[in-house]
């Protein structure tokens, strides 16, 4: 029996998994249209490489990665691109993102798929292939997997596969492990090779005995060595990467520390599966397993092509009347979907239909009574009641000193709070305020630096000009002295009024005028040749200024109470 470690706290919400984990994974029907966002991964939005009206094949690249931290997006089926525009997406902000709308032609015709034997490929080739196949972490963070599959100079001892699935309701990893265990383990072998990892540990919460059995059978059948399927205690958030690493290895990965620096790396089981499909079968990441559960007729898991509108997906599980909304993700960390027209994305592990009976609205919040139930359950070992206090009073410096940014927003504190305070929202608010302030400060610093440099430059130019002028003057005077001596009589003859003083005055005036002209000519150059981003920034600043002016105005207008 493997020695397991404990992490602090945790909660035991009702798991609600049996509703959906009894039925096998069903292939979701092709929807009427697919709305495929080009931003389905951590990092930069992919750049579209298709045109409106173009026919694309299943697996064809729709968007290419933009920069290092980005990923590829593919067509989930064959069909015609009808639009490339901003559409609402499955994101808590509800803001539109660049999406490609694809009308399926029903043929589901693949691009030619190239099967690879990973053992004959170099690691660099494998990483490039994963990037081209759009493989990202399917546990929720959707971080490009190729970037995580470096061990650098660090020795990775255990590669941890995360099959814990600690959030209530979600069963997509459970079903995947029951049905496709062999391929998950094949993917794990590729990951192990890329990381030079000695050992693979798969952590699965002990409330999934079928998945554990299936995975263990697959380890034996595939004769995988130094690979262990470990049943871990069911406690939320035991499936958080940091918590699972802690339970399996005893290592605590603090916020801001890369787990590879501590010799461990963690991937979701779904990511391992996709890695195998991408490399061995040449299938890019174009679909995933999604649990559709909650207030629906037949809760179950579907293999869903990305871009499938959520409403159409839910309909396949049997929509019910009196649905009050939809959660993407689990009930502990998920978010209410701003729209059901948005497409399923790589991060969509679960859709929960809500009803007032399943998810009654919490009673109004009462003040904190410092009972510290939140601190008792916090897996990051923070003092949530203090953080709440600081966030509420906008004492952000203190909040940071009390490790606000170590909060993983698991929601365990809110879950147990007897005063029903939405603690996580307070922390999110404080975090975003701090980010905003940091950005504002950086912008101000940049502006100040630019201003100071400009002052310095103007000063320097002035000085240089004066020096040049003085030198010129001196040279001219010397010359004039010699010339004057030679032609004095001539000047005197042609210009009787001329006196040396007034010629000097004239010359100085001319020099000043010239300098002024030059200065005038230089000035506008500051705002010329600006990049579109700079122009956009300027407009934004102008808008903000106008708003501030407006606000100031309205403040002035308001009579003092």
């Amino acid at each position, binding site marked *: 029996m493997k020695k397991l470690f404990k992490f602090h706290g945790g909660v035991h919400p009702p798991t609600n998994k049996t509703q959906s984990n009894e039925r096998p994974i069903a292939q979701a029907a092709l929807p009427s249209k697919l709305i495929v966002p080009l931003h389905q991964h951590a990092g930069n939005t992919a750049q579209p490489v298709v045109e409106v009206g173009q026919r694309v094949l299943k697996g064809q690249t729709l968007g290419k990665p933009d920069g290092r931290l980005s990923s590829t997006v593919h067509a989930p089926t064959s069909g015609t691109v009808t639009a490339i525009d901003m559409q609402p997406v499955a994101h808590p902000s509800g803001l539109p993102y660049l999406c490609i709308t694809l009308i399926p032609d029903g043929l589901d015709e693949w691009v030619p798929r190239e099967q690879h034997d990973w053992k004959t490929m170099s690691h660099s080739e494998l990483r490039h292939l994963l990037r081209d196949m759009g493989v990202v972490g399917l546990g929720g963070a959707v971080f490009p997997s190729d970037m995580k599959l470096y061990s650098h100079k660090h020795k990775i001892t255990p590669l941890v596969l995360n099959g814990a699935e600690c959030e209530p309701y979600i069963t997509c990893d459970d079903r995947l492990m029951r049905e496709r265990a062999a391929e998950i383990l094949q993917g794990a072998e590729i990951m192990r090779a890329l990381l030079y990892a000695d050992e693979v540990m798969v952590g699965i919460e002990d409330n999934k005995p079928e998945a554990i059995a299936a995975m263990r059978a697959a380890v034996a059948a595939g004769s995988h060595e130094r690979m262990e399927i470990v049943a871990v205690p069911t406690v939320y958030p035991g499936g958080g990467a940091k918590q699972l690493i802690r339970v399996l290895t005893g290592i*605590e990965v*603090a916020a801001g520390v890369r787990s590879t620096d501590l010799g461990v790396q963690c991937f979701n089981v779904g990511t391992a599966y996709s890695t195998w499909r991408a490399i061995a079968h040449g299938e890019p990441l174009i679909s995933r397993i999604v649990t559709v559960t909650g207030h629906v007729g037949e809760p179950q898991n579907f293999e869903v092509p990305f871009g499938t509108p959520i409403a159409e997906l839910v309909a396949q599980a049997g929509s019910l009347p009196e649905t009050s909304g939809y959660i993407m993700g689990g009930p502990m960390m998920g978010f209410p979907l701003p729209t059901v027209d948005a497409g399923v994305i790589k991060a969509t592990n679960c859709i929960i239909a809500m009803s007032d009976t399943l998810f009654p609205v919490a009673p109004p919040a009462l003040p904190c*009574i410092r009972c510290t139930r939140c*601190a008792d359950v916090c897996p990051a*070992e923070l003092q949530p009641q203090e953080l709440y206090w600081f966030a509420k009073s906008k004492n952000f410096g203190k909040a940071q000193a009390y490790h606000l940014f*170590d909060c993983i927003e698991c929601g365990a504190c809110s879950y147990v709070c*007897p005063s029903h305070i939405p603690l996580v929202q307070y922390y999110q608010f404080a975090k975003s305020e701090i980010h905003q302030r940091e950005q504002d400060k950086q912008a101000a610093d940049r502006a100040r630096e630019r201003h100071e440099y400009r002052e310095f430059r103007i000063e320097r130019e002035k000085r240089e000009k004066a020096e040049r002028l003085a030198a010129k003057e001196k040279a001219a005077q010397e010359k004039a002295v010699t010339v004057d001596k030679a032609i004095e009589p001539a000047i005197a003859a042609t210009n009787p009024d001329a006196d040396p003083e007034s010629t000097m005055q004239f010359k100085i005036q001319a020099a000043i005028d010239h300098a002024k002209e030059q200065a005038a000519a230089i000035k506008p150059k500051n705002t010329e040749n600006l990049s579109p981003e700079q122009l956009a920034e300027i407009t934004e600043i102008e808008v903000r200024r106008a708003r501030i002016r407006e606000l100031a105005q309205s403040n002035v207008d308001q009579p003092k109470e």
Partner: protein
Amino acid sequence: MFFAPFISKPDSVSQIMLRVLLALIPGIVLYVWHFGPAILVSITLASITALATEAAMLKLRGSPVTPFIKDNSALLTAWLLALSIPPLAPWWMVVTGTAFAISISKHLYGGLGNNPFNPAMIGYAVLIISFPVPMTQWLTPHGLGSVELNLLDQLHFIFSGALPPGVSLDAITMATPLDTLKTQLHLDRPMQEIMDMPIYGRLAGQGSEAVALGFLAGGLFLLLNRIISWHIPVFYLGSLFAIAGVFHLIDPAHYAPPMFHWFSGAAMIGALFILTDPITSPTTTKGKFIFAACAGLITYLIRTFGGFPDGLAFSTLLMNICVPLIDAYTQPKIFGKKGKQP
């Protein structure tokens, strides 16, 4: 719109407070058994005053009345205060103390969750400083006094201050065991002789030791239900035991044994119900240790060398002042930043 987490543990502030109230019941039952029903009168009086003051203050502060009245916190303050003052105290004392506790020490600081001091202890402190004499007139337990009042007589006394003809106040009241001990020691009587006096039972005061046992039982219920953590009761009683033990070992003739201190006065109710008030106690484990251990020391010092009959209220209030400081200096190390990795 509501946000993650979309589910919550079925629990609430009012449920927590209600369970604390329930946990007081064994102690109250034993109180009535040994001292008669007068305590129920003062509990009722205090409860009505607390709810009325709470409602009035919420109105004045512009807060919603219903959700806060239902949180049961005012009732808890009322019960704890009523249990700390003599049951025969005149009605206006109970009302003044409770009203002061709720209005000044709770709502003027911002209401539930914002009071730095335990309101019940503030109420007690105000009463013992303002009206010291009635605060020492405790009922004599059953079987010790020459006369016993029935409920009607008790009610009559509480509301009018008049006793039945032929009954003197001294006949029905006495000083507390702690007070008696102090007076008798001043008279240079040896400890053993004092302890043989009829007002003392097996552990401490006759009757009052049973009430303390009742509170201990209620406290265990709170511990089992995880309403309170074990830290403060254990550290408080431990520190009280330790210092009392040291003095008793050095000079048993002049210093009472530790068990006497545990079951005398407000030590039990204080350890389990008053010091454990989460709002006015530290949140960190280390902080709870400092808080409770110091409170135990101060309690002992006031009891043994001070002028007041018991030290719980003042030790609680003194340590309440230190809570923000204790919390700030006892922040624990967090996940991944403890400096040790396997």
